[in-house]
């Protein structure tokens, strides 16, 4: 008698319980970094893509995924690192964007990341910004960028000019 392997849908649900180590209100699946779950015979293969190439959370994320799946009884497991296509904030789910905002992090602006990057560059070259990053606390669009980088590679530092609070922006990528 062979053991019944959990369905991939079940595995996806389990992975949906694994929080991002830096931004624990969103899960690794909501961030869009789990790219594939499949069975190769009796081996469960999970393909994970890094957000940024040098993100120090990558190894922690792998460890958390492995721990979660082992706790669910998966013994034969392989994690694959997948580079292509490269991760984009377009893969961050709508639900995760709401959770980020509630947590105090402005989510990536709507539209595609490539549009965001291009629009940002055009704005920089023309000397004005057409990207509106709303303050996650008071909702004001009267905000300014303090720094292109923040507490993690995926964020930038902003300040609200109405409520005066500093906040992180999960930047388009």
């Amino acid at each position, binding site marked *: 008698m062979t053991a019944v392997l959990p369905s991939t849908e079940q595995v996806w649900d389990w992975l949906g319980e694994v929080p991002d180590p830096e931004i624990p209100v969103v899960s690794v699946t909501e961030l869009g970094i789990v790219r594939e779950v499949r069975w190769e015979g009796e081996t469960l293969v999970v393909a994970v893509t890094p957000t940024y*190439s*040098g*993100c120090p959370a990558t190894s922690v994320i792998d460890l958390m995924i492995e721990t979660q799946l082992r706790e669910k009884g998966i013994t034969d497991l392989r994690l694959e690192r997948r580079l*292509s296509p*490269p991760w984009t904030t377009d893969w961050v789910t709508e639900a995760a964007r709401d959770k980020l905002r509630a947590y105090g992090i402005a989510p990536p602006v709507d539209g595609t990341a490539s549009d965001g*990057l291009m629009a940002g560059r055009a704005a*920089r070259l023309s000397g004005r910004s057409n990207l509106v990053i709303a303050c996650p606390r008071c909702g004001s669009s009267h905000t300014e960028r303090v720094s292109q980088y923040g507490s993690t590679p995926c964020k930038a530092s902003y300040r609200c000019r109405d409520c005066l609070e500093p906040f992180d922006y999960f930047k388009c990528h």
Partner: protein
Amino acid sequence: MPSLPDAATPDVARLAERAAAAQSHDPHIADVALKPAFFDWLCRMGDNSLILGHRISEWCGHGPVLEEDIALANTALDLIGHTQMWLGLAAEVEGSGRSADDLAFLRDAMKFRNLKLVELPNGDMAVTLMREFLFDAFHYELLTALTKSSSPRVAEIAAKALKEVSYHLERSSDLVVRLGDGTEESHARMQAALNKVWGYTGEMFAADAVDDAVAEAGIAPALADLLPLWQRTVAEVLDEATLSQPEQRFDAQTGGKQGRHTEHLGYILAEMQFLQRAYPGASW
């Protein structure tokens, strides 16, 4: 700098096995005639990122303002991440059991293939930023071209790295403009920095037999094709920054790509490689 991030440390045998099985099978990896040049070129890509990343990381905890400190540390992280991918592929192409970490920590200076530009000491923020801008402007064009590489493995690394390097260029060009067209002091420092590093920039475009071989295989672009693109960006940004392009030759200092380095590289390696040399195989 501690060890490279360990998550991605390639297990060479496993990677080779997987690469062979992958859909994006890369014909160049098995090309024996091309191997020496392909390996050397991948080391150039990885070493530029590694040495510049190491240099920039030296600012960590010393930045003039917190935001800059964080930005520099993040830029360094991106570059070290790229190193992991480039040297990982180099190790795989070499196929002799060495890993990305072995290449980073156990090669001597003469085996390093980075540009002399990236090993120069940081100097002040002006030198650090000017060097980064001049390299970013080249790096951006190079990676853009590499996304169309005949090697799918090279193309996927380039696509990943390009997203981050676009951001580096945006930041460094913005700062060159703000400081060049800033106060009298910042302008003078940026001009001095430009004069200081200018003679090292030509090496980025000085093709040799290795560059020719990978270009011929369609893996990488001809470096000469990138020059006008770089010159346009540099001219635009320097103009906006009210800085003058030096009249001296831009290719006075070459040789890094062939392993002839300045004395500065030895000091970098002494610090970076100490732990693996003193305690071989140490990990944490």
